[in-house]
């Protein structure tokens, strides 16, 4: 299964949270994804769909009582699920880095920007303090921070949200990772700043030939910045395709619902559509299809047994009985 052009390949990943003896939350349940070098995979879904947990699992940063219980994560062809915590420490930040949603809470309030950049550089690269400091200033300049030689001595609370997110990007790219995981990097920012930050990410991607796992619930962002899309629901991937393909031809009722809840210039509507109900909690999924409780096209069999992921064509997979004539690629 392992293909060499993939920087990241996740296979049947399962991350469960053991809340109590008979309560297990299947936050990530059999997710398979892959990202090619220099490309962006967008992971889309509403809150609680398991997209952030998939990202944190990729870094093996799941806190107890959570645990990766199955599957493989190949980073550049090497499975990291079996790696020890010590080995992971030198992979994190160095080979793959992460950008968090909230730039205010993700930067440590009591250390200067310079301190937080330098400690990262010196953790993974054998350089002197002075060299690391110069590199830090250069990185701040790369992410378009004005007056980098002053900002480097400032504390996170002295910067605006957009600036803080730029600092976070500078930290993330400081060791030139092959994979960048961005967990809703623009959700906490003003709309005017969002575009700038995403453009910066795109620029950095080209500059360092990075692959990006972009987690978002903003389909507009997906259309503009992603190469591939995976839609998640209830800890599973329910539809996966190249971005144009998915946008033009959404198949899974959930994806269709997401699309129709977007405003469109071509067909203006008075009211945006919504998907009724909420995502079921991860410890109490329905027996059959996990979307069956909210699906407009639900059938009897959807309630009785879960659908597999069916392949519509080479690169378009859907987890729905409506498309069963396709070839089931996932026997479970």
């Amino acid at each position: 299964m392992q293909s060499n052009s993939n920087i990241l390949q996740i296979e049947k990943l399962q991350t469960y949270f053991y809340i109590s003896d008979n309560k297990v939350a299947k936050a990530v349940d059999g997710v398979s994804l892959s990202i090619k070098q220099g490309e962006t995979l967008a992971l889309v879904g509403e809150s609680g769909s398991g997209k952030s947990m998939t990202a944190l699992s990729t870094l093996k940063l799941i806190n107890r009582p959570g645990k990766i219980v199955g599957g493989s994560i190949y980073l550049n062809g090497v499975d990291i699920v079996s790696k020890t915590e010590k080995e992971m420490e030198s992979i994190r930040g160095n080979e793959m880095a992460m950008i968090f949603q909230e730039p205010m809470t993700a930067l440590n309030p009591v250390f200067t920007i310079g301190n937080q950049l330098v400690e990262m550089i010196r953790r993974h690269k054998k350089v002197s303090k002075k060299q690391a400091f110069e590199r830090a200033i250069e990185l701040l300049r790369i992410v378009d921070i004005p007056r980098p030689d002053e900002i480097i001595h400032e504390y996170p609370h002295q910067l605006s949200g957009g600036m803080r997110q730029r600092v976070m990007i500078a930290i993330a790219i400081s060791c030139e990772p092959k994979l960048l995981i961005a967990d809703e990097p623009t959700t906490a920012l003003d709309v005017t700043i969002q575009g700038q930050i995403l453009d910066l990410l795109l620029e950095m991607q080209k500059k360092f030939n990075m692959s990006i796992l972009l987690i978002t619930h903003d389909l507009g962002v997906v259309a503009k910045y992603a190469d591939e899309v995976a839609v998640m629901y209830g800890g599973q991937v329910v539809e996966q395709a190249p971005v144009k393909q998915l946008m033009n031809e959404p198949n899974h009722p959930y994806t269709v619902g997401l699309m129709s809840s977007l405003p469109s210039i071509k067909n203006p509507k008075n009211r945006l559509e919504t998907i009724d109900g909420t995502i079921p909690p991860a410890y109490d999924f329905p027996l059959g299809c996990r979307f069956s409780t909210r699906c407009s096209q639900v059938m009897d069999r959807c309630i009785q047994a879960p659908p597999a992921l069916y392949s519509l064509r080479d690169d378009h997979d859907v987890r729905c009985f409506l498309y069963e004539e396709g070839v089931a690629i996932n026997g479970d």
Partner: protein
Amino acid sequence: MARYIIRRLLVFIPMLFLLTLIIFSLAKAAPGDPLTGKQLDPTVSKEVYEIQREELGLNDPLPTQYWNWLSSFTSGDFGQSMYYNGRSVESLISSRLLNTVYLGILAYLITLAVSIPLGIYSARRPYSLLDNTATTFGFVGLAIPNFFFGLIGIYIFSIHLGWFPSQSTMSDPLLTGIPAFMDRLHHMILPAITLAMAGTATYMRYVRSEALDILGSEYIRMAKAKGMKERTVLYKHTLRNALIPIITLSGYEFGILLGGAVITEQVFNYSGLGMLFIESIVNRDYPVIMAINLLLGATILLGNLLSDILYSVADPRIRYD
């Protein structure tokens, strides 16, 4: 910052004034005076005491007595002991003060050295064996009164094991240099551990709950995502943030240490300020009571000011102007 400190110091003056008024009233409200205890001596006639009282000004109206004390105090004269035959209050206090300061410093060092690592480790593995043990120890430390713990310490470590002396501040006043230092340290260990007990328990609980909060925060996850070693995550990113409330607490700890010393010194017959304080209360030695109280009050106020200043050093988001 300088303006802030000056403003805070100016506020101290009315507070200390108020403190003297309260202490004076309370001391005077207690029955008897410095001569009451001595009256048991049958060879001395009552008239002698009356003359003495008149000389010491104990028969003046209370406001006059207070004014006399206050005016001499503000001119830098702390007065004379009424009990120790006119020995100056200054010399009485200075002979004892250092003993208490040393004891307090040692107790505080023990508190920090024990509570911070224990708190951090408990937070790292909550509800583990170590955490539960430390929590139990914490509650026991808080629940057992100082003097009782001191007595148990004397019983085990002095009487049974003979490791530490149970009394006094030194064994031979003629010692000098390093042997003298070691001798004093040897005498201080048991009282210092006793004194440190309650503070250690409190600090440990604080560090644990702070660290537990911080370990769940986004910037710790970020630090881990950067690949920082666990030790760096714990002792740099977590500890530095967990110390912020501890610093606030340390201002009050000054007062608690000194207050605790009063009892601990009594148990270990340790000749410090606390013992002098008890003696002066028993003897109704008003000038000494007043001076020690003012000293304690000023120490607590200064301790709080110091902790507020340190707070702004530890947390860059806090600035006083």
